[in-house]
């Protein structure tokens, strides 16, 4: 008999809030976090809008009581902020007897620091160590004093979701009792310019699933959740149960989704199978919905196929936060869990007209008393990577 896995703690920092409460307030008040860049210095300062967190690295260090001189990249700092909140939210103490793991996903690790010091070795060589993805996860583990099981993954924009899936599986297999899992990424010039070369950035606030969508806004943040096996969290607050997950590959193109959206379809189908739920059991889908031409139409087609044209209410929350890359899967998992916790559906901002090829439109207003039982969260990324997670009300 597999262990059941519950979410017992959450922590988040994004452009719409520095903690869980602020994020929730912004979501229900339709307060987006898309703005010009103030913290990151780039030649594209005036032309691009992003979901930037308006705290400097020193502000973040202060919040963590870490000395100013330390070597952490912004990606690392964001993940520690979120992990600390999740850890406290779950009422955890360091060094209890539960076998605990830390698993974090990120796309480019400490790139925000590497790109500043790469050509200026005389000023700082710390970035050579902080560049790799594992550095961030280890710093989270060190901060929380977890020393048993630590690993990281990097699967582009589905990284955060895949970290959650691995944590759940390790608990189900009895290898871990508890997993502190999620994703993190800071905005970097590297990713900003990268998406720019692909013509995937919308110069205006992005409008996912809109007919006239022009692309995405890059964002930054971290989302960390605490997963625990049923037996060790009987007497504490359990937000929801993770009941389904699947990862599939579209195997079509390095950046574009196949016209028939095979990968996205398969991961939704397989996650449903894993959860033993039927499509009609899903009350809300937090879609990947980046606002790019290719993503939204293919994800829409996959939704129509899986739900056989009775698609449940869905929305992309990326118009709030921007696309937070490696963090997106985890941040949106948290929004999905908040949806269950508060019985609410968050709106898809900036939507005006449906995509002509699709017969579906996202939720555009806050829907309260939405009868939420099971929520699906999608994450897709470069390399054809696609992951679906399903969270269920207990």
């Amino acid at each position, binding site marked *: 008999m597999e262990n059941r896995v519950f979410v017992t703690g959450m922590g988040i920092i994004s452009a719409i809030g520095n903690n869980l409460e602020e994020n929730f307030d912004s979501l229900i008040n339709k307060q987006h976090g898309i703005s010009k860049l103030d913290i990151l210095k*780039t*030649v*594209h300062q005036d032309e691009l809008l992003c979901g930037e967190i308006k705290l400097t690295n020193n502000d973040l260090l202060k919040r963590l009581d870490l000395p100013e001189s330390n070597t952490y990249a912004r990606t690392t700092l964001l993940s520690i902020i979120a992990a600390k909140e999740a850890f406290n939210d779950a009422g955890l103490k360091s060094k209890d007897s539960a076998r605990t793991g*830390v698993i974090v996903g990120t*796309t*480019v*690790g400490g790139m925000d620091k590497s*790109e500043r010091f*790469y*050509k200026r*070795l005389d000023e700082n*060589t710390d970035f*050579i*160590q902080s*560049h*790799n*993805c*594992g*550095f961030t996860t*280890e710093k989270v*583990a060190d901060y929380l004093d977890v*020393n*048993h*099981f*630590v*690993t*990281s*993954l*990097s*699967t*582009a924009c589905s990284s955060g979701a*895949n970290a959650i899936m*691995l944590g759940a*599986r*390790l608990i189900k*297999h009895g*290898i871990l009792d508890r997993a502190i899992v999620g994703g993190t990424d800071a905005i970097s*010039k*590297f990713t900003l*310019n*990268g998406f*720019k*070369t*692909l013509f995937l950035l919308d110069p205006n606030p992005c409008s996912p699933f809109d007919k006239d969508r022009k692309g995405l806004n890059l964002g930054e943040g971290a989302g960390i959740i605490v997963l625990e096996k049923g037996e060790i969290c009987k007497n504490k607050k359990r937000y929801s149960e993770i009941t389904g997950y*699947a*990862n*599939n*590959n*579209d*195997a*079509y*193109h*390095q950046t574009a989704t196949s016209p028939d959206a*095979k*990968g996205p379809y398969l991961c939704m189908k397989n996650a449903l199978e894993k959860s033993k739920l039927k499509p009609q059991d899903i009350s809300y889908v937090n879609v990947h919905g980046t606002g790019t031409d290719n993503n939204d139409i293919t994800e829409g087609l996959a939704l129509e196929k899986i739900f056989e044209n009775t698609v449940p209410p869905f929305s992309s929350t990326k118009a709030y936060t921007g696309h937070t890359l490696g963090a997106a899967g985890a941040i949106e998992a948290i929004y999905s869990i908040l949806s269950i916790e508060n019985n609410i559906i968050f709106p898809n901002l900036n939507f005006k007209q449906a995509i002509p090829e699709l017969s579906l439109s996202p939720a555009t207003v806050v829907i309260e008393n939405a009868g939420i039982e099971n929520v699906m969260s999608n994450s897709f*990324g*470069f*390399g*054809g*990577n696609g992951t679906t997670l399903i969270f269920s009300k207990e």
Partner: protein
Amino acid sequence: MSIFINAAQAISPQQTFLKDQLPGELVKYDGIMQCILPDFKNYFSAIELRRMSRIIKFSSATAQECINEAGTNKMDAIITGTGLGCLEDTEKFLNKMLDTDEGLLTPTTFIQSTHNTLGGKIALTNNCNEYNITYAHKTVSFESALLDASLLIKEGEKNILVGGIDEITEENYNLRKHINQWKEEPFSNLDIYNSKNSGCKAGEGAAYFMVSSNKTDNSYAELKMTDIYYKLKNPSLLAENFKNNLKSKTGMSLNDIDFVLFGFNGDVKSDSYYHQIKDTLFKDQDHGYFKHYCGEYDTSASFGLWVATRIIKNNYIPDNILIEKRKRKNINNILLFNQENNENHSFIVLSKC
């Protein structure tokens, strides 16, 4: 539930590609250790090659030969481990961006800089829509992938391609000189075991394995256990954990292990932790090492596993692997033990099948 290794291929700085035996003679490197590459035109068309960086080429070629050896490209998952991913493409995009002050840039190196390009490319080539994950956690990137593959077999999957891949570039090599990661040149890879100073040899490679729920006539070994520990700094605590897990997961005791393959890399401080374990826990076993073959890189343990597959299948340890004279007659169970400065310890146990 048993887990078998049915195919194993590696491209490395030695003559290892498509070889059934370990080489008797090793190639000597005084500096950086880069892979001996096959002619990629035998594997990919010009139009395919246009976008493939060196690591994508040697990763993909190794994966294809592993798939050929396994005799099936119907994989239920492709799982890769890579510490730094597509380094050359990352550096290219980063340099161009910095040199032009975020000027006119092209997308190809950016989109290929992601760690999961390697696994994605194999999925693309083999039309594989299944589970596809990439681990990137320093020296346990590959072991995380292997552990995930074991979980999938227990979940009912049949054939899983698992790989460990990293590349070294001149630029990264020079960069890491600044943090004293390497041996001062010239230093021969053949001298790492007797090294008395700090630093290791920079290496690279790709090793792929078909991990399967079914034994075949060609199976190399049974994979009994994959364990990782982040920071069990106290050697006796580490030993205790390993012993307990070995017992509970495989039913074996320490004495059942015949041969231990250590990740000695020439850095005298990091290697001292191997010596401690070797001289206390494994006094009665045969001992070997492998990084004089491949150099040190985040996924070098994947090459260690490739070495172990050859040793267990041939029941033979070449002299260039052995640390001291053989004590045991047969090699029924091998332990591969890797770590870096007493962190990220990994234990992989293989048994004859």
